[in-house]
């Protein structure tokens, strides 16, 4: 099936050549003829990685990158299933899974000395050296443009929203954000403290049931239904699934209530004992280089995890960037280790509320 990856993308490929940092060809001769498998996400991010970043990298290093589009949790599953004999070298996963991968010995520490691009990485996106963020989305409400969204999450519990909300299913990571919101409303505490009190907030969760039309697991599809007017508001979803629609003119956009919003961190990790680690590290470094980061962020409407990237004002409307802006908007990243330890029990409780 060489058709699929060795295709030429016309002007896209030309654009990619422009992206490539000016590297001396012979310097990369060590990589010639090597091949690695990487697991990336689907969506517009995956499309960009496949069509623009990889072809340029393959050209610069005379190597071959086979990219498979999947999603975080399946990617973790694939790493686990192939642990004794790794098939993949680099995996793109969300920050939620990094502690699990680390504890199960699925990933290796990044070799800092071989990755110069790490120098510009904001420390909070470094995960103690066990991976790096690639893109930051913001999670909040998405709503039909004809609906005025509330400025506080609390309003969504009101009777006027009966049957008009779409709630993210416990299968998806943003479901944890919803639990934190419920706990914050119940306790009146900020997210950072409320996340440790989710266990006591399930009566609050149950109270919203009458307003929920369905639990969705396909973000783009839910956004599409909200655009059609089948429901008023969806909670909560990452901006990367909604803004591409907004930009195309669909009547759906996002809003961020005063309690704050959440950071969805898309990351990359190095698979422990994966084939051709040197090439894998070079690729991960490429992902963080400024030229790649700028184009990547503009394409998928996500914020870069590295400092010093300039964006137009039009683009900045969609991004929480730079890091000061993230703080200003109260962008919250949960304590994933704590969340992961409790997620199974919480999911069981969610099932008990919505599924019987």
């Amino acid at each position: 099936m060489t058709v699929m990856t060795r295709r030429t993308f016309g002007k896209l490929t030309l654009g990619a050549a422009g992206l490539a940092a000016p590297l001396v060809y012979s310097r990369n001769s060590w990589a010639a003829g090597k091949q690695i498998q990487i697991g990336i996400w689907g969506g517009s991010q995956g499309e960009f990685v496949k069509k623009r970043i990889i072809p340029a990298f393959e050209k610069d290093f005379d190597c071959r990158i086979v990219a498979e589009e999947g999603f975080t949790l399946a990617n973790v599953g694939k790493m686990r299933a192939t642990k004794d004999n790794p098939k993949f070298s680099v995996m793109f996963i969300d920050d939620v899974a990094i502690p699990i991968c680390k504890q199960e010995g699925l990933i290796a520490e990044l070799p800092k000395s071989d990755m110069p691009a790490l120098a510009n990485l904001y420390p909070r996106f470094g995960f103690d050296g066990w991976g790096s963020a690639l893109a930051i989305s913001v999670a909040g409400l998405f709503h039909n443009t004809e609906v005025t969204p509330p400025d506080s999450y609390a309003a969504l519990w009101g009777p006027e929203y009966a049957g008009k909300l779409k709630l993210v299913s416990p299968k998806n990571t943003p479901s944890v954000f919803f639990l934190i919101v419920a706990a914050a409303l119940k306790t009146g505490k900020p997210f950072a403290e409320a996340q440790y009190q989710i266990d006591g907030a399930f009566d609050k969760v149950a109270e919203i049931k009458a307003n929920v039309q369905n639990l969705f697991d396909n973000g783009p599809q839910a956004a599409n239904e909200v655009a059609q007017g089948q429901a008023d508001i969806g909670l909560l979803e990452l901006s990367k699934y909604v803004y591409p629609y907004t930009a195309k003119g669909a009547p759906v956009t996002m809003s961020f209530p005063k309690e704050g919003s959440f950071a969805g961190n898309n990351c990359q990790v190095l698979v422990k004992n994966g084939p051709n680690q040197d090439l894998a590290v070079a690729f991960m470094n490429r992902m963080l280089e400024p030229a790649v980061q700028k184009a990547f962020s503009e394409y998928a409407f996500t914020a870069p995890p590295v400092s010093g990237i300039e964006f137009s004002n039009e683009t900045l409307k969609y991004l929480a960037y730079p890091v000061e802006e993230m703080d200003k908007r109260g962008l919250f990243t949960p304590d994933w280790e704590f969340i992961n330890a409790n997620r199974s029990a919480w999911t069981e409780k969610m099932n008990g509320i919505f599924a019987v």
Partner: protein
Amino acid sequence: MPGLEAVNPALTAAPDDTGMARLWAAITGGRLTGYLLVAPTVLFLAVWFLWPVLSMVTLSLTSRSVDGVMVEGFTLENYVRLFSTDLYFRILIRTIRIAVLTSLIGALFAYPLAIAIARGGPTMARVVTITIIAPLLVNVVVRSYGWQTILNKTGALAYLLKSVGVASPPVLLYTEWAVLIACVHVYLPFMVMPLASAIGRIDGSVEEAARVAGASRLSCFLRIVLPLSLPGLAVGVSLVFSLSAAAYVTPQILGGNFSPLLGTLIEQQILTLNDWPFGAAISTLLIAMVLITNLVFLKIVNRRFARWAGGAR
């Protein structure tokens, strides 16, 4: 019977050669031939199915998930949790309910279609067959989207019901009904095809004779077609029951995640919670339920069929 005509030249060629009869009996009589025919498939499935799946299922006894991380060591905890939590029992019951209803409703819809294929002439057979197979070729997400558009509050069904005078038509989307409708829809061909093939094998002259003797169409169906099509029905029901019991995408999309089945929970455990041992435990429960139902059902049908077939001939 086209088969008889096909063999005619051979029949007339050597009418008194009993050697061939003995050879044929030797080939088809011995168990060895039987085992040889079955062996490749059994070996294939033993290596590429039984081995991996059993090792996955044993995970439910040899490891558990502690704080989201898999820890090895013999344990019964997964099963204790499974059987002591009310939620899982309720979902097991729902799974059985949906699978039984899908099979029953499917059979109800399948008989007219199967009779049309078997008895209705080439054009009709072709149209019916292609139409019922078509849903299988449309990806489940897109198919579900079609149903959503029909079943939602402003959808085609609501419109239809309103126009015939139902003041406030029920919204079926995001209920168990939607899951049931979609399951019947997509698994219908698995019921129709074996039924049609069984009905097609029934000698039409038997029905004709019954009709000539004054039997009504209904009693003709009940006393000849229904009993003689039982092997086909058995195949259809066991397929549809098994497939709908393991469904997991439809309950998510059309049931709005309000009516998950065991399959949905398994997917949740494996993909979202990374808890393979508990997912394996739920799988074991599902497998045991479907296997037992199928074996019991096939035993009953086979016995009945033997009796009915004896009576009808």
